[in-house]
């Protein structure tokens, strides 16, 4: 039932208007019923107030029920209050002058007590979900309806002799006692259930539940036993006791409506709002969670998104969510879209009574959830990708350092020592002239091999960069340029992380190489400066221009490195206009 009303309600305001019109129609019909009752009851006499009070209190139920229904369209409390009002209306017919109507009133005289218990046990959602509660509610209706029958069936001298089937005052009396015992049992069970609920509720809700439940139980006890207590024990006039009873009955719908509206219970009625919101809002990150949380009245509500590839739920940032085991204060509902899981909504079951409500809201926002799920999925894989790229760049840098160090400490050192040995051989007095000459040639050969290796090591990872940092290394690059090179340095060594410094270094080295090798530049300038936490490298040459990042030079790989480090590379190289490369990298990466 709920679903049918919720889903159309969320589709647009047409249905909301339709609901409003229906409620208005119910109000009119109720007013007519009240007027009708007034017209058929016995006016005047000792208990003249009672016949008038019944339709008036029926109007109170009508009003309260309609307000609850209007303000919380998908909460069933409004409907229940209206039904209780109908029962009261029927009971009020007992004052009618029309025999049939009076009979109806007799049969339904105590139904209002069952309705009140129903209301108490269905609060706040309007549904009786627990099995025990349902049994108690059923028992209440049985007690007030079926067990009521002996009183009029076997008592021809009762208020309505036409209903009597036999004159058996004993049976009527026994029936009354049975009804009293059953009613007492129902009351005790109700009280136990309500106390249990109170104990499970959190503090904010207890503030509403305690007065409401106390009033409800007191009202039922008062109505059921006022006849015995006030009339028989205290000798109060029956008419006055009746008025007091009706006033107590009239307070019931007011108490429930206040409880629903003020008690910060699930505001499922505003799913319609949620639907409207979805239509207009762009659904920026987190807004969906906020909207669901607001609509369902649970500030602790959280939405997580299903990533099928990794088989995990992630939050809006793409970070995997630790699966919460359903416990006292946490419940989770999974939301499907077109047959596959898209999201999970975790909420506080003390605040939202029914998973169905959450599921309904989730279904409405499923498309938006799917969109956010894809976004979260994307963020998660983007984060993973970025981390893996960073690791790769860092590993490559570490590897360069290691290779340079190993070559230098190992092979380079051995070549030097071999050359020493060759030279010693050449110098030894016992070495013949020819052998000495060959040893010297060997020495020269080893020496040039050592030189080449030294240059290779330098290209892999320059010593100045390892020993000092970017400015020393950049200066050495500029010093060795065959064309006039101006160097403008405004950065202290070690100010940026090693991987950033080496990236900047290789950008300069590559740009300078390109300027000489391909652009036939005759002058080049290099600027290295740190602006706040960003390292900026600028290389300008006056060469032929026309360079691109993808022309097979080392710039492509360097552009990737710069990108991984969260930086930018700009290449301006119009033919005939020289080439400018500007790289900016955050220092800390």
């Amino acid at each position, binding site marked *: 039932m709920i679903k049918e009303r919720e889903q159309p309600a969320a589709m647009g305001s047409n249905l909301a208007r339709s609901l409003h019109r229906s409620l208005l129609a119910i109000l009119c019909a109720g007013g007519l019923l009240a007027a009708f009752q007034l017209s058929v009851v016995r006016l005047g006499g000792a208990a003249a107030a009672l016949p008038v009070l019944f339709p008036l209190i029926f109007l109170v139920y009508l009003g309260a029920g309609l307000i609850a229904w209007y303000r919380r369209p998908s909460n069933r409390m409004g409907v229940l209050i209206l039904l209780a009002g109908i029962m009261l209306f029927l009971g009020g017919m007992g004052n009618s002058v029309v025999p049939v109507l009076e009979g109806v009133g007799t049969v339904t005289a105590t139904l209002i007590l069952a309705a009140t218990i129903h209301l108490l046990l269905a609060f706040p959602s309007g549904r009786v979900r627990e099995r025990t509660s349902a049994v108690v509610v059923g028992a209440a209706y049985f007690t007030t309806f079926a067990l009521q029958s002996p009183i009029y069936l076997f008592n021809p001298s009762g208020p309505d002799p036409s209903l009597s089937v036999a004159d058996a005052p004993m049976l009527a009396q026994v029936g009354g006692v049975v009804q009293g015992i059953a009613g007492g049992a129902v009351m005790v069970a109700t009280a136990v259930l309500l106390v249990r609920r109170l104990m499970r509720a959190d503090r904010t809700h207890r503030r509403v539940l305690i007065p409401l439940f106390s009033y409800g139980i007191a009202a039922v006890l008062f109505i059921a036993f006022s006849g015995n207590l006030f009339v028989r024990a205290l000798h109060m006039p029956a008419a006055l006791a009746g008025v007091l009873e009706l006033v107590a009955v009239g307070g019931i719908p007011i108490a429930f409506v206040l409880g629903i509206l003020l008690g910060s219970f699930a505001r499922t009625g505003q799913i319609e709002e949620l639907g409207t919101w979805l239509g207009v809002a762009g659904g920026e990150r987190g807004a969906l969670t906020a909207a669901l949380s607001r609509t369902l009245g649970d500030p602790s509500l959280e939405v997580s998104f299903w990533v099928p590839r990794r088989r995990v739920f992630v939050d809006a940032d793409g970070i995997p969510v630790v699966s919460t085991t359903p416990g006292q204060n946490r419940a989770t509902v999974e939301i499907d879209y077109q047959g596959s899981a898209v999201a999970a909504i975790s909420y506080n079951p003390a605040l939202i009574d029914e998973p169905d409500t959450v599921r309904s809201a989730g279904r409405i926002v499923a498309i938006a959830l799917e969109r956010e799920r894809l976004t979260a999925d994307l963020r998660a894989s983007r984060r993973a990708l970025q981390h893996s790229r960073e690791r790769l760049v860092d590993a490559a840098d570490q590897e360069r350092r290691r290779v340079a160090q190993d070559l230098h400490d190992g092979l380079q050192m051995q070549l030097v*020592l071999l050359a020493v040995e060759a030279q010693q051989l050449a*110098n030894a007095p016992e070495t013949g002239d020819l052998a000495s000459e060959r040893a010297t040639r060997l020495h020269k050969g080893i020496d040039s091999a050592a030189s080449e290796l030294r240059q290779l090591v330098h290209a892999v990872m320059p010593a100045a960069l390892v020993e000092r940092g970017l400015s020393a290394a950049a200066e*050495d690059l500029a010093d060795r340029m065959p064309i006039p090179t101006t160097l403008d340095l405004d950065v202290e060594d070690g100010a940026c992380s090693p991987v950033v410094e080496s990236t900047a270094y290789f950008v300069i080295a590559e740009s300078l190489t390109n300027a000489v090798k391909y652009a036939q530049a005759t002058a080049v300038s290099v600027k290295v400066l740190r602006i706040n936490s960003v390292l900026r490298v600028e290389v300008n040459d006056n060469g032929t221009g026309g360079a691109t990042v993808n022309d097979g030079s080392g710039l492509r790989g360097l552009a990737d490195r710069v990108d991984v480090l969260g930086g930018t590379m700009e290449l301006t190289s119009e033919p005939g206009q020289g080439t400018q490369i500007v790289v900016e990298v955050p220092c800390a990466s």
Partner: protein
Amino acid sequence: MRVVIGEDEVLLQRGLQLVLEQGGFEVVAIAGDATGLEEAVEKHQPELVVTDIRMPPTHTDEGLVAALRIRRQHPQIAVMVLSQHVQRRYARELLTDQTGSIGYLLKQRIADIDRFLEDLRRVADGGTVLDPDVIAVLVARAKLSDDAIGSLTPRQQEVLALMAEGQSNAKIAAELFVTEKAVVQHTSRIYDALDLPLDSDAHRRVLAVIRYLTDA
């Protein structure tokens, strides 16, 4: 002559020791890191220190820093700095406030034993030795940025580079296959062009040329 060696590679320690002892030097201590080097220098008060730039624990430039400190605290101790790679910045740092007794060579030069020993002796004698590689960088760079050096003939630039290496006129003449007299003519032309003060002391002459080049 008593020498302390600063070098962390065991193989090279041995090699250096061998070369030095064959050249008549007495190796009194070998240190594997910069702190050890300075302690050994304090303890042995050698005439000469030969040290690598990059040493433990940070493997950056601690050998260079130690060399400068030793020169400052013990002006009588000459220092030869060896390095995997030579560059102008280190040369400038080594020469600032120094009046000689300092050398800066590629490690690789050890293998040219005779020349290496000669360079060591020159440094111990109060001279200045710079690696040909770094001189080449200095001259090439000065040629691009300094009009005075640009105005020198290619032959004069060659002579300038050899002068900066600390070579004597006789050595330069032998290297370039010219007479010593021709070398003297070239050097006086160079002094005129660079506006350097004439000095009878050979060491100070070399230092003046190198300073000119490193600051150009």
